[in-house]
């Protein structure tokens, strides 16, 4: 029962981070700041959701697979964010300044 509540909490937190990522994607002023939505908010949200599901599934095998998926998503997200940001700088897109 306690694990159910814990899983529920983790899933809600995960959903919140996804929401934060979407808001960031829509509201941040330039491409460099929007990268944060991808690399931070959504990956964290995915991590929380994975954790909640892993607890809920109650199987080490499933938990391990979810962990692998999460690590792969983070690897892809981080690499892509770097590649896009570097190319954007090379193309003289100026970062936003207040």
């Amino acid at each position, binding site marked *: 029962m306690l694990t*159910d509540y814990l899983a*529920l909490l983790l*899933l809600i937190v*995960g*959903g919140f981070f*996804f*929401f934060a*990522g*979407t808001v960031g*994607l*829509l509201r941040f002023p330039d*491409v460099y700041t*929007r*990268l944060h*939505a*991808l690399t931070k908010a*959504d*990956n964290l*949200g*995915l991590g929380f*959701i*994975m954790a909640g*599901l892993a607890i*809920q*599934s109650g199987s080490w095998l*499933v938990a391990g*697979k*979810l962990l*692998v*998926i*999460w690590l*792969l*998503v983070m*690897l*892809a*997200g981080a*690499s*892509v*964010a770097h*590649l*896009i940001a570097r*190319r*954007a700088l*090379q*193309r*003289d*897109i100026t970062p936003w300044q207040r």
Partner: protein
Amino acid sequence: MALFYGFLLIFLLLNLLAGLWRIMRGPTGADRMLAAQLFGTTTVAMLVVMAQLQEQASLRNVALVIALLAAVTAVAFVRRAWPEKETSADAD
């Protein structure tokens, strides 16, 4: 719990659809590509939730494949479609 999973799925789907605005809006190619990358992450999240909800373990493999290949399109974008400097005149 099943009801909550349903809510979570619909919520994630709405997040996904909201990303369309960024793809439409741009303004740079990078923004559009970034939004597509976010779609991949959200899809992975939805797939693992569905795997739990429908008790179909194979859906985790779909999520695994999407996670693995999430980078390929973006790498193609950076390496091919968005070169360092334009060969022809550009607007930026």
